[in-house]
């Protein structure tokens, strides 16, 4: 009798212990937007208006989640990807964010694009305690877990990238005259700030010429003409794809051969180098953290093969040469990973927690050696880049993978 009671108590305590330890399999926790069968994800992209070229990212992501669903979903749940257009207008972004959170009741908003739009919704998202996850902008302000614990970036920040260029130039061409052509908005200005930071005191002994241009200008050719006349050694081309292409083309037409650096945003072979002309693009420098489909080195790379398979089957209309599709694939894969890590605890808090616990995760289309790492104090998943030079019809990487936070040595 006493033995039976002992066993009974032991069994009961074992069960009690198991329950109390919060075994995820036994307990499912959901916040609005997650159920046993579905996870609803919100997204805001500029499908119309001046930034509509970026809309392809949203399309890639939608296709990616469709693929995930076809393969059974994440932990048995299908992803319901709801994406809205904000036309790159902040008030519209606010409206769409509220619609997603209050009307569509999504679990989180993922990869919303544009610094103005994200700035507009940041306070709201944090007040409502809804994750604003993996925002599609490189502004440095997204890495602020203390003040904005629900907002996280993804790509290397513009400033970090600029610091890498600054360090490179300090080494390769000390005392140079650098012409900085930059887009007069948050994107361009952030780079300029980063570049100066990277040069250090006294601009590192370099002479800087700053020339801005507006997005409303049809062509920036006249700026190139002006800059050439000042005979700089280096041209830092801080422009979005269309304008970067115009600049590359004009520089070649003028028979000007400076050290020509473009930003990572404008390295798409299909979207920038080809329109500018491969001839004209020879020798152009930049930095990358994603693989390029045109690079023959990745022909048999398992990660890129998966990407190609995905594009052929789910996004046949998409252009593999368009760097934005590679980007969209990588971010979407990161979200899938985070959701997977969350298991059955699909509360918003836990999703943020998992997002802040990435430890060396490497999506298929990210350069080998670049690892996503986050922590409770580090909300910048990617901070590594490798420099590259355009040769022939593709980008040729050189040097080491540099950790942008220390800007390389």
């Amino acid at each position: 009798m006493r033995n039976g009671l002992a066993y009974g108590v032991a069994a009961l305590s074992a069960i009690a212990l198991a329950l109390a330890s919060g075994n995820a399999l036994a307990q499912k926790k959901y916040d609005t937007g997650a159920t046993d069968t579905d996870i609803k994800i919100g997204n805001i992209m500029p499908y119309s208006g001046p930034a509509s070229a970026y809309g392809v990212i949203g399309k890639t992501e939608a296709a990616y989640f469709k693929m995930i669903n076809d393969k059974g979903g994440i932990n048995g749940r299908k992803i319901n990807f709801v994406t809205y257009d904000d036309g790159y207008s902040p008030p519209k972004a606010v409206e769409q964010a509220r619609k997603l959170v209050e009307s569509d009741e999504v679990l989180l908003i993922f990869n919303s694009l544009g610094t103005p739009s994200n700035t507009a919704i940041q306070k709201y998202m944090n007040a409502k305690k809804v994750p604003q996850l993996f925002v599609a902008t490189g502004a440095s302000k997204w890495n602020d877990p203390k003040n904005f614990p629900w907002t996280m970036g993804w790509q290397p920040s513009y400033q970090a990238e600029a610091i890498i260029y600054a360090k490179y130039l300090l080494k390769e061409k000390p005392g140079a005259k650098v012409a900085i052509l930059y887009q007069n908005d948050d994107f361009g200005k952030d780079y300029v700030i980063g570049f100066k930071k990277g040069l250090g005191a006294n601009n590192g002994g370099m002479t800087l010429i700053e020339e801005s241009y507006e997005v409303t200008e049809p062509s920036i050719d006249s700026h190139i003409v002006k800059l050439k006349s000042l005979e700089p050694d280096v041209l830092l081309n801080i422009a979005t794809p269309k304008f970067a292409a115009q600049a590359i083309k004009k520089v070649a037409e003028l028979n000007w051969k400076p050290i020509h650096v473009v930003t990572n945003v404008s390295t798409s072979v299909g979207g920038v180098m080809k329109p500018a002309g491969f001839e004209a693009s020879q020798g152009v420098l930049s930095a990358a953290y994603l693989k390029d489909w045109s690079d023959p080195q990745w022909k048999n790379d398992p990660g890129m093969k998966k990407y190609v398979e995905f594009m052929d089957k789910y996004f046949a209309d998409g252009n593999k040469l368009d760097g934005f599709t590679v980007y969209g694939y990588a971010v979407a894969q990161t979200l899938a990973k985070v959701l997977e890590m969350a298991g059955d605890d699909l509360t918003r808090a836990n999703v943020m927690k998992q997002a802040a616990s990435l430890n060396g995760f490497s999506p298929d289309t990210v350069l080998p050696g670049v690892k996503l790492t986050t922590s409770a104090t580090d909300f910048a998943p990617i901070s590594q880049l490798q420099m590259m030079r355009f040769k022939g019809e593709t980008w040729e990487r050189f040097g080491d993978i540099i950790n942008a936070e220390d800007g390389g040595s």
Partner: protein
Amino acid sequence: MTGTSASRSRLTFSTVSSAVTLAALIAIPLFAKNFFVFQLTMVLIYGLAVLALNILTGASGQFSLGHSAFYAVGAYTSGILIEFAGMNYLLTLPVAGLVCFVFGFLFGFPALRLSGIYLALATFALAVAMPQLLKVGAFEHWTGGVQGLVITKPDAPFGLPLSQDVWLYYVTLAIAIVIYIAAVNLLNSRSGRAMMAIRDNQIAASAMGIDVAFYKTMAFGISAGITGIAGGLGAIVVQFVAPDGYTFQLAIALFLGMVVGGVGWLPGSLAGAAFIVFVPNLAEGVSKGLSGAVFGVFLFIIIFLVPHGARQIAILLQNLFVKFRTTQGGHHA
């Protein structure tokens, strides 16, 4: 006899419809979701801006494609005062209105020399220039430059159990009603008639002794002032101001709101505003890839069916109403 009953009917129709609309506007937020209340608040705000445009274009005949500029100035004035001067949000509105009034009034002077298509271009230039001016480095400390300013959203006062959205909605509604009544009175007054005379035939009006310059610049000032108040409210409700939010797209949207509502017809401002807030979303719902095309098609359908805007629908309904009344009421001698 018929004349009197018809005029009584006309009064009754517009009174009835106004009463119904007003009742709906007051009651809906009590039942609706916060997000819908937010959208309705935006409808009221844009309605004010369209109203302002109706006064300028509809009443005084001055074509403006630049109202987004005044809206922006109002928004930034409110935003800067709230964030940097710690001013109470309600107080910033009359200031925004006044600043824009002055701005509009001053703009009205060179505008006197221009008319029709040329004035359209000048106001168009203003609308395009405004985002640029807002980005200028020299003012960045106040305007936040390209990044914009985040604005704190006020809570309901005295601890009333209302959400921020609902409270702001009622504030906006109250302001809108006051301005609407003032606008109606303005247009029915001597000044209003003077403006309309100028619109119909400027030379004749001037020959009759109307001070054309005064009324035209006043119209610009008043219109800009009201738009400025709308902008200020917009800034508070959206909690954010940035140059990208006040581009030429906004000027076009307000213009479309005016046309769809019925140019110069004040009640139409609300219908026009509803159009610009809800129809783009509808279009996106129909087709994500072709949302612009669907919107364009909707717009075409509307202007084909009712070239004079919502006013045409109202007149139609009114006639039906009168018919209904007269057949119903029998034939009173």
